[in-house]
């Protein structure tokens, strides 16, 4: 595995740290538009409840795809299925054309898929540095020198603006900082596909404004494909090239964000959802 | 070689033993399910009930109907005091700490009994309870029937208390979702105290029965605690009627192991079953919430 130096420091605008050369994910393939992730008739039932009902979609390399839907629409369940945290009831998931259902989360991570959690889950007894280091060490298989790992960790910390906080323990961080740690940890595994579960939730508008270019930069400069769940519609419109809309476990829309707001079913899902709420 | 009557008799004895097992472990399971404390001093509370009953029944000839509630009440008081003095102060720290605390409490109590009442083994013998009755060649004693009735009454009493009474509801809600309960205006701290005290009371009922069916000694508590553990896991945390079934499975399984295989494998049966259930079905046989 070779890492490539990237001269630009776009994420530094988010982090507000010194511009510096950054090494993050390897780019094994350029964003050719080939399918990176594909779900076919993916379902998950909890007893009688169909949390995810026969969903099919594709994510192409280099895309930023948003997943939206009312509460309880099955977004987080979908993520759990894709990332191997929950076994699916039926269906198929292909990652780089290979079936991945039934693989453990750590194997998926080694293949190049990383995720963040909606509710941040840092390792509380480890420092920020150790949190990220663990991801750098175990995110990819194969032995790497300590030197390589450490430089990776430092790059990710700088990129996410966590470098000054490296020695702190997560409980002492603010929420935006912890969210950044969550992303930093996922990033340190050098993923091809990043599943972001509401990384913007709980941030104030200013913080969101800072975070969006960062997400875009991950995609543009490092060609990390991103699938992100988001509640903040404005944010998702601004950053995603395509969105998936879920309602009651079903995929009701798959297309450009601008088309979604016109779609009758999407409007009904959001308004209807509000009426019942 | 083994007659059919003996098999039936053995089966029945296992069921009776099982019902009593359920009673012995009720307090521990209850406290574990509600307050999330594994009370390693459970057996010692039970033994306390046993000693109180021994003194009242055997030494002072008090009526069993009065002695039993008194014994239970004393164990309840002991639990109440233990909670107020110690446990309450560390509710926020780790589960492990409560484990060590109750373990220490158990050692303290067992040795206190040793100092107070010597190492003598005590038997609560009430003559009329020991009389055997015979039905179609199957024998039971008055005391056995009585203890089974008491056990069932306590188990179902607790069940109805939890499902019907206001306090019971509060306890259940707290067990299911502490934060929600607190938001709903339930004083969860008080629920913990009440639940722990009830756990002591329940143990206190078991003590006299243990003294009647077997015997009590200062160190008898630990064995009971371990058995209670097994049953709680077997039944699934939080399932009170499940305890009865689990108790019976254990009691009958042990009895039939002796009848058909060998007495040396009796305990092995219990632990093998325990591990098997844990691995196959970690939530226990009836692992639903209350």
């Amino acid at each position, binding site marked *: 595995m070779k890492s490539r130096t990237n001269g630009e420091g776009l994420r530094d605008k988010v982090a507000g740290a010194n511009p510096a050369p950054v090494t993050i994910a390897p780019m094994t393939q350029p964003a050719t538009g080939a399918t990176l992730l594909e779900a076919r008739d993916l379902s998950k039932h909890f007893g009688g409840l169909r949390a995810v009902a026969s969903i099919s979609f594709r994510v192409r390399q280099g895309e930023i795809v948003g997943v939206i839907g009312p509460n309880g629409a099955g977004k987080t369940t979908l993520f759990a299925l894709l990332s191997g945290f929950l076994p699916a009831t039926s269906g198929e998931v292909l990652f780089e054309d290979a079936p991945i259902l039934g693989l453990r989360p750590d194997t998926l991570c080694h293949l190049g898929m990383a995720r963040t959690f909606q509710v941040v889950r840092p390792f509380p007894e480890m420092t920020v540095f150790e949190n990220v280091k663990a991801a750098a060490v175990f995110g990819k298989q194969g032995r790497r020198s300590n030197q390589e790992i450490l430089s990776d960790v430092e790059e990710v910390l700088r990129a996410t603006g966590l470098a000054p906080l490296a020695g702190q323990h997560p409980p002492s961080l603010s929420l935006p900082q912890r969210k950044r740690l969550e992303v930093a940890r996922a990033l340190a595994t050098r993923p091809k596909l990043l599943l972001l579960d509401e990384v913007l939730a709980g941030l104030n508008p200013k913080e969101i404004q800072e975070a969006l270019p960062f997400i875009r930069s991950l995609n543009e400069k490092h060609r990390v494909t991103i699938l992100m769940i988001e509640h903040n519609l404005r944010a998702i419109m601004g950053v995603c090239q395509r969105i998936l809309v879920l309602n009651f476990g079903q995929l009701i829309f798959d297309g450009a964000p601008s088309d979604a707001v016109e779609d009758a079913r999407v409007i009904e899902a959001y308004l209807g959802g509000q009426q019942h709420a | *070689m*083994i*007659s059919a009557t*003996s098999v039936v*008799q*053995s089966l029945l*004895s*296992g069921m*009776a*033993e099982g019902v009593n097992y359920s009673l012995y472990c009720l307090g521990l399971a209850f406290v574990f399910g509600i307050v999330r404390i594994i009370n390693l001093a459970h057996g010692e509370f039970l033994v306390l009930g046993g000693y109180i009953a021994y003194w009242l029944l055997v030494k002072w000839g008090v009526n069993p109907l009065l002695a039993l509630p008194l014994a239970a009440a004393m164990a309840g008081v002991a639990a109440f005091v233990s909670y107020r003095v110690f446990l309450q102060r560390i509710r926020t720290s780790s589960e492990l700490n409560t484990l060590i605390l109750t373990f220490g409490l158990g050692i303290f109590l067992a*040795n206190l009994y*040793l100092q107070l009442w*010597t*190492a*003598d*083994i*005590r*038997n609560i*013998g009430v*003559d009329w309870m*020991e009389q*055997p009755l*015979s039905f179609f060649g199957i*024998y*039971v*004693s008055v005391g*056995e029937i009585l203890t089974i009735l008491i056990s069932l009454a306590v188990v179902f009493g607790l069940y109805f208390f939890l499902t019907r009474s206001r306090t019971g509801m509060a306890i259940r809600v707290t067990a299911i979702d502490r934060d929600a309960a607190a938001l709903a205006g339930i004083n969860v701290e008080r629920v913990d105290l009440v639940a722990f005290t009830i756990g002591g009371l329940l143990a206190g009922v078991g003590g006299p029965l243990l003294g009647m*069916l*077997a*015997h009590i*000694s*200062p*160190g008898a508590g630990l*064995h009971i605690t371990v058995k209670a553990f097994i049953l709680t896991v077997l039944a699934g945390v939080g399932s009170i009627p499940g305890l009865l079934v689990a108790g019976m499975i254990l*009691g009958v399984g*042990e*009895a*039939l192991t*002796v*009848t058909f295989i*060998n*007495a*040396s494998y*009796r*305990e092995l049966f219990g632990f093998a079953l325990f591990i098997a259930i844990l691995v196959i079905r970690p939530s226990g046989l009836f692992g639903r919430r209350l």
Partner: protein
Amino acid sequence: MKAKTIVALFVVFAVAAWSPGAWAQGPIKLGVQAPQTGALAKHGQEQVKGIRLAVDEFQKKHNVQVDLKVYDDESDAQKAAASIEKLAGVDKVHAVVGGYGSHLVGPASEAAERYDTPYFTTGAVDRKLSAKKLKNFFRLNHMPGYAAAQSGAIKEALGAKKVGILYNSLSATAEIAQEVKDQLTAKGVEVPVFEKFEKGTTNFKPLLLKVKDAGCDALLVEGYFPDYVGTIKDAKILNLPVKAYVGAWGIGTPEFVRELGPMSEYVYGTSIWEMGTAPKEAKEEEAAMVAAYKEKFKEEPSYIAMLGYLSGKYMLEAILKGGKASGSYSPEKTREALRSLDVMSPMGRIAFDEKGDPKYFTAALFQTQKGAQVVIFPTDRKMGEVVYPAVPWGAK
């Protein structure tokens, strides 16, 4: 005058030189290692009571001060050995008595051997203990004596044809069960049921039903107090049709009678000593010990207390005798004194073989009749007639 004075002075000096020689040894230091807490606490405590009584009497009788050190081994093997380290290594006691449970006495006697300190136990019957041929190891009772009393009585006094043996899985009971079974089988008595149960068993019915279905005449329970309580209670409920109930040790004691009341009646048990079983020669000693014990502790002595008493007594006598002979309390002299011991005691004739085992030890088999222990076997120690068939749960 002068000569007289000189002679007198000489005598005084001689006395001073010799007798303070004995005095100069100072008090006898006797160590006790016994469980005071934990599973065996009960037995250990009784044992210590007996030893304390022996110390009292010895001090009065010989006017020699005895420093008694009692250490609790907490019913734990490591602590048992450590107690000996403390007694022999730190307190430098002249000898150790006590010890209960073969698994505690094993490591303890090993430790005593390391310190070359005589070790005299009354609570460990395992054969392997003396098989090591430790030169400092002595005991008052051992397993074959118990087994012989049981098998002999079952065959000869009761004439049972089929015997069911249930035994506690603990070391001593497991060993005696095996021994009794072998002896019975050799005598032509059938043993169709031979089963081991765990300590803490409370439901004995399935086991007893096996005894019932096998048609046994006698039920032999090699266990401890709780096991007797459990089996007798369950046998009563099942109305178990056997003709005799025999327990190993610790049955028929005053505590047993107190706790079980009428259900203690007719049980058989092996005993080393019960009130009134002393041979003629030792009747007086027995009565004196019992009276003193009651006076001191306000309760009847059990056989464990008696054993403790005797071990304390003979050990102290041996230390003193050895010390008198040589001028110092040396382990070697104490051992010699013990090995030369041959007396009639309340528990029969006492002398040791080269392994430290009691040469003449045989237990007696008694039956509890009206709350008292009536020895029925061996015939030469017989105190009364056996009531057979009779079981405790048949008594009213």
